[in-house]
């Protein structure tokens, strides 16, 4: 049976009751893995509190950071500072330079294009080709479609459709999430998958984008962040002087 993940909850504030309500709602809607976007200097006790709340609501918390660099050098600097501290690293690409660098870098898990304006979205063939050589997935937060009306909305849908098409052509994984900052912006996994089918994904692909793909990304990162991880396929199984047998 599928287990669903919403990797992008962006609460407006780090207010504990508010985040508890969001986690409760996400769990009610059927998500067993929840990613909360935290600030770079997130307080440890708050993170522990969020983990405890997730456990109470039978969900698993993934710590996530959304980087918003203005240049590729800033991206490289912030990546080296943040990579080992968070289980998920997403890069919000507001320029082509940052988008290209993020797609090439194997430390980046998710590529996000938050702009609703088609001119500021850079997920094209070149970007997809770079991303397919790395490990980054393209994230489509459904909150993008909120607050858009008329021709801007139609153009955005058309843009998303093209991006999905390009991602599928180059085998770039797709992740669908709500991107909600409030309880009212959360939607169930099947509803998110249905929204994804509106932009050209098949039903099964859309359901994978809310379940398998995010789970695989988190699993991979948790393995890498484990203290016994050496390199892909190599783990420390025993330490100490007597390591025979």
């Amino acid at each position, binding site marked *: 049976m599928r287990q669903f993940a919403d990797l992008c909850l962006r609460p407006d504030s780090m207010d504990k009751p508010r985040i508890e309500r969001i986690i409760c709602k996400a769990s009610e809607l059927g998500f067993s893995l929840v990613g909360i976007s935290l600030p770079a200097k997130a307080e440890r006790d708050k993170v522990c509190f969020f983990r405890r709340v997730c456990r109470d609501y039978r969900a698993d918390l993934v710590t996530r950071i959304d980087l918003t660099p203005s240049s590729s050098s800033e991206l490289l600097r912030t990546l080296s500072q943040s990579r080992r501290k968070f289980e998920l690293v997403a890069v919000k690409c507001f320029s082509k330079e940052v988008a290209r660098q993020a797609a090439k870098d194997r430390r980046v898990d998710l590529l996000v294009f938050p702009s609703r304006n088609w001119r500021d979205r850079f997920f094209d063939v070149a970007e997809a080709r770079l991303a397919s050589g790395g490990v980054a997935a393209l994230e489509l937060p459904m909150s993008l479609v909120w607050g858009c009306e008329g021709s801007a909305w139609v153009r955005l849908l058309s843009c998303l459709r093209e991006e999905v098409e390009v991602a599928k052509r180059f085998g770039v994984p797709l992740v669908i999430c709500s991107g909600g900052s409030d309880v*009212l*912006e*959360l939607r*169930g996994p*099947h*509803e*998110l998958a249905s*929204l994804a*089918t*509106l932009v050209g994904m098949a039903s099964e692909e859309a359901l994978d984008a809310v379940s398998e793909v995010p789970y695989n990304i988190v699993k991979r990162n948790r393995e890498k962040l484990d203290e016994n991880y050496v390199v892909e396929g190599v783990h420390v199984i025993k330490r100490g002087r007597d390591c025979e047998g």
Partner: protein
Amino acid sequence: MRRLKKRYLALTTESSTGQTFSEREVWDALWRSVLRLFGEVGASQLGLFRVRGFDAPGGVLLVRCWHTALERVRGAAALVRGITGEPAAVHVLGVSGTLKGLEQKLRACEVSSRE
């Protein structure tokens, strides 16, 4: 032509102020979303109807559509952001091929939420 199967959906709403909406208001919001997404021609292909005369728990709207249109109706429901000017969200509680099956699912949902 092959017979189209039906699917019954139970929809519930949530608002920022905890306000409950009438079936008519939720139905109007859903229908507006459908028209906005698919237009009148597209809406006609969904086979979307409101189910009346069924004893649903309070605050639940029952609708029916063709099984081929289920994803589109879900998508339209997910895009509802407000009802009668009040910020709100529409969630699908359950889907079934029969009203009886849906009723059983709703009862199971009620029991699990009480627990």
